[in-house]
């Protein structure tokens, strides 16, 4: 097998078409329509980019979930990043699209235009390099992401400690997937009458399970009667994942299955998990943008590492901040509304001038609909 195969085979249009046919055949046997929540924004992106919605039969729906680390960041924490960036002698580093998300004081990009040293990094490894090259400055890593990026932040801290670095701080915003899934089901079941649809099944993101294993989803079939298929991010992976879910319904099964067997095991990567457990512990509560406080859904540094914790070294405001009135990101993250239902979608809110976070990240549902909306 060649490296190319790992790309082209899983994007092959013919395979996608053949899987669509299989899904159609299976779905024709379904007693009721099914709503599949793809938890992760990466899946939303694939679904929109490859036009998979158009290939699915009428009785299968996608509900876009909250799995985009940029989209769920509440304004008060973006403000933290902004405040930290504006401190004397600080270099603030962060990943991805975080730099463009507006907080109540502006985005990190705005901070930069006011003279702050804000750097977009590709990897925590770059942060280490920046800290070494700038010993006279405090380098703060605003760490974001789900289970997939958490061990890398732990590895960064481990290296910083081993190399006796004293000018590196972390601001930890790492969140976890199962807790938010639980919240979505619980909150939906509570108000069930007010929603015309409901999550029947989950498509779990593969890379989360590469680290945490597929076992993290076992409570969903067992306690909530929702099947889960852990699927990869290529379009063929997503289509096969959908097929596997439909088959479960037809065969009366409800379980966790792995489509992405080439990288996911039940146990996940133990070494990465050990690193997380070594440095982090769960917060009692963490506020998700649009979703509110969710118990045990995020990590913080253990007390033993408080010297590295920007939240403890600096005095940062604790008050909660409301979102923009017209923005319905919260409903979108809950899977209750589609981006096109927002009054300002594509008009007052665009990727160039985002009002809400779902329009910022390329994994945000609004940004994906904006970019690939002509396919709808």
């Amino acid at each position, binding site marked *: 097998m060649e490296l190319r*195969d790992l790309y082209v085979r899983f994007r092959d249009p013919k395979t996608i078409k053949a899987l669509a046919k299989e899904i159609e055949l299976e779905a024709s046997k379904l007693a009721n329509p099914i709503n599949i929540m793809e938890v992760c924004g990466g899946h939303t992106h694939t679904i929109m980019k490859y036009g998979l919605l158009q290939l699915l039969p009428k009785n299968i729906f996608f509900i876009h979930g909250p799995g985009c680390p940029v989209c769920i960041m509440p304004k008060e924490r973006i403000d933290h990043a902004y405040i930290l960036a504006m401190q004397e002698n600080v270099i603030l580093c962060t990943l*991805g699209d975080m730099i463009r998300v507006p907080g109540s004081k502006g985005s990190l990009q705005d901070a930069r235009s006011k003279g702050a040293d804000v750097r977009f990094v590709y990897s925590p490894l770059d942060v280490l390099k920046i800290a070494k090259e700038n010993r006279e400055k405090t380098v703060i890593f605003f760490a974001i992401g789900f289970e*997939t990026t958490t061990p*890398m932040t732990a590895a960064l801290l481990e290296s910083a400690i081993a190399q006796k670095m004293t000018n590196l701080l972390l601001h930890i915003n790492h969140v976890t997937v199962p807790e938010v899934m639980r919240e979505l089901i619980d909150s939906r079941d509570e108000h069930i009458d007010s929603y015309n649809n409901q999550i029947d099944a989950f498509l779990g993101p593969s*890379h989360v399970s590469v680290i945490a294993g597929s076992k993290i989803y076992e409570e969903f079939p067992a306690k909530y009667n929702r099947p889960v298929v852990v699927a990869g991010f290529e379009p063929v992976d997503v289509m096969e994942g959908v097929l596997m879910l439909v088959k479960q319904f037809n065969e009366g099964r409800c379980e966790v299955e792995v489509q992405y067997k080439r990288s996911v095991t039940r146990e996940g990567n133990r070494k990465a998990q050990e690193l997380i457990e070594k440095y982090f512990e769960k917060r009692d509560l963490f506020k998700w943008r649009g979703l509110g406080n969710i118990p045990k859904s995020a990590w913080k540094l253990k007390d033993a590492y408080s010297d590295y914790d920007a939240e403890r070294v600096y005095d940062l405001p604790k008050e909660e901040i409301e979102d923009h009135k017209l923005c319905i990101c919260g409903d979108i993250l809950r899977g209750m509304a589609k981006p096109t239902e927002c009054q300002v979608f594509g008009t007052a809110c665009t990727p160039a001038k985002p009002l809400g976070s779902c329009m910022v990240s390329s994994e945000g549902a609004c940004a994906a609909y904006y970019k690939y909306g002509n396919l709808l």
Partner: protein
Amino acid sequence: MCLSIPSQVISIDKEKCTAIVDTLGVKREVGIDFIADEVKVGDFVLIHIGYAMNIIDEEYAKESIKLYQEIIEKMEEDERQRMIEESDNCPGGAGGA
């Protein structure tokens, strides 16, 4: 940010706990902290924000590819069947009687 990219390991530096990988022709250095004990040159790995997350299991990848091949063949066979049936049902093949 969230996507992970398949790459192939070209060389390993155990001491630095890094490897050079090839991502479709682009070479770069990544951290191998999570797979340091098992990884070998030539392995396929998934890269995410500068770290190799795991080693891709080639056997499973091949198994998937084989399964897809079968599904495609089945689809093509079905399409052939349908074409034959359609032309069978069309007397004279052009315009009818």
